[in-house]
């Protein structure tokens, strides 16, 4: 069942068209890899789904309705470097900030909010570290805090922006496992990544993006080099295409 629909979205930034006529549908249970070169517009696409950039034309529907940030059921995991890791705050309080919009102005977190935070921490396996200052966490733990912060909203759609940057392989595998499980729990997960091999191996769908959606299919149907050459603007001899032969 489709939970997120992006229909004909075009976005201009600084006078240039960054995204052109994007169509993308996310189904519950899908773990979709959004893949494209630097500057392809991956982050911009996630931000336009969230309503953070003005869409020149087209629309984004979640559960058939336009997105409203405050009521939204879209969880967002921005890139790790956006976060002030030197801030003196515990893991649980950092996760709570995911609910600030829902808690609303002039109010403080209530019982239900703390319950949601505890459940989110449990889900990512960080319950034991709930009171640790965020500055004392490893890269993988930090990433899990960000995922928990998104889960604290109990979202049906989860958007992850390059969750694996700077993490070692075992950590990537653990997180991938987590994302697969989340997709299995009646969520649609969309993640941008530069790890092509990992994405081909674990995602249920791959969307190739370069200003527009070049291809959108299960990995098994994407073994033809042609769409990859178009998305990345490389020739037939590019080492990138060797990955496809491995699959």
């Amino acid at each position, binding site marked *: 069942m489709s939970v997120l629909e992006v229909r004909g979205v075009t976005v201009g930034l600084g006078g240039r068209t960054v995204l052109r006529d994007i169509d993308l549908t996310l189904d519950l249970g899908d773990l979709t890899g959004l893949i494209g070169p630097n500057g392809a517009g991956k982050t911009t696409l996630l931000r336009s789904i969230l309503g953070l950039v003005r869409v020149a034309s087209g629309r984004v529907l979640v559960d058939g309705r336009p997105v409203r*940030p405050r009521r*939204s059921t879209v969880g967002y995991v921005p890139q790790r470097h956006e976060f002030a890791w030197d*801030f003196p705050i515990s893991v649980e309080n950092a996760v709570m900030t995911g609910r600030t919009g*829902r808690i609303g102005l002039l109010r403080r977190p209530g019982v239900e909010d703390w319950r949601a935070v505890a459940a989110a921490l449990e889900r990512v396996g960080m319950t034991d570290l709930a009171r640790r200052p965020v500055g004392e966490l490893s890269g993988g733990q930090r990433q899990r805090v960000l995922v928990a912060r998104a889960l604290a909203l109990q979202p049906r759609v989860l958007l992850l922006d390059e969750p694996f940057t700077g993490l070692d392989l075992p950590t990537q595998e653990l997180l991938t496992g987590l994302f697969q499980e989340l997709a299995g729990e009646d969520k649609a997960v969309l993640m941008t990544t530069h790890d092509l091999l990992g994405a081909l191996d674990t995602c249920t769908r791959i969307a190739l993006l370069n200003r527009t959606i070049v291809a959108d299919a299960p990995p098994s149907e994407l073994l033809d080099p042609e769409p990859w050459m178009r998305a990345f603007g490389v020739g037939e001899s590019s080492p990138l295409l060797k990955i496809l032969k491995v699959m």
Partner: protein
Amino acid sequence: MSISEFLADLTNPDLAFLPKALLIAVMSSVVCGVVGCYVVLRGMAFIGDAVAHAVFPGLAVAFVLQGSLVVGGAVAGVVTAVLVAVFSQNRRIKEDSVIGVFYVASFALGVVIISQAPGYAGSLQQFLFGSITGVPDEDLYTAAVTGLLLLAAVLLLHQQFVTVSLDRELARAVGLRVFWLDIALYVLVTVAIVISVRTIGNILVLALLVTPAATARLLTDRLGVMMLLAPAIGGSGAVVGLYLSWSYDLPVGGSIVLVLAGVFLAAWTFAPRHGLLARRWRRGGLEENPAPAGAV
């Protein structure tokens, strides 16, 4: 001068300005200490500096027209704070240069305005370095009421401020009005400065905002504790500083700021986890850090 003599002077009806000065110095430090935590954590000390300078023409106008200094300073400061917020939304502009030009100019404007008042050298001195004499009662009440309102606003907006400070991108994604929260924070900083500027002085007030909060940051990794420690440090620093100033006939703003700086240096050296000695000690000893066995 001994402590008991100081206490005697505080209760001496002929020296009625002294307890008032103490009261306003402590209130200023407490308010600045709380707001200063956000200033330090967001690395926006430059805003404090800018606002402190920009408040000056407002004070000068109020002084020349014999109006309320608090009101004059607040108007100038809030206008400035809003302008800063507007300028710094566009992160492509190097805001520090804009601010540098703009605020030194407004400071200059203040100097020119105040030169129109009779006996201006003396009043300029007061504005720049603070003074404990002649605090009118109404200023005391204004400061107390605004201070309480400010603390209430901090309490109510704390969760929002933390969310924005931690991650602006996520704050937007969960529907916070980041721009308005920035303005609110800048206005709070301004109010804290305006309350304090008369006793501490225009140039030194930045220290009241930054030093206690920075000291508290060295002593704890918990925001809640930090926001209690900073006003406590600031308040005590004000008492000790005023005592020293009164005993040795030193300028009050300078004494308070030097006391606070001393406390900061002590914390920087001796703080249990982040202090110089603690770090040395740890580097010398064994790091207790178990190998990450499949731990993410």
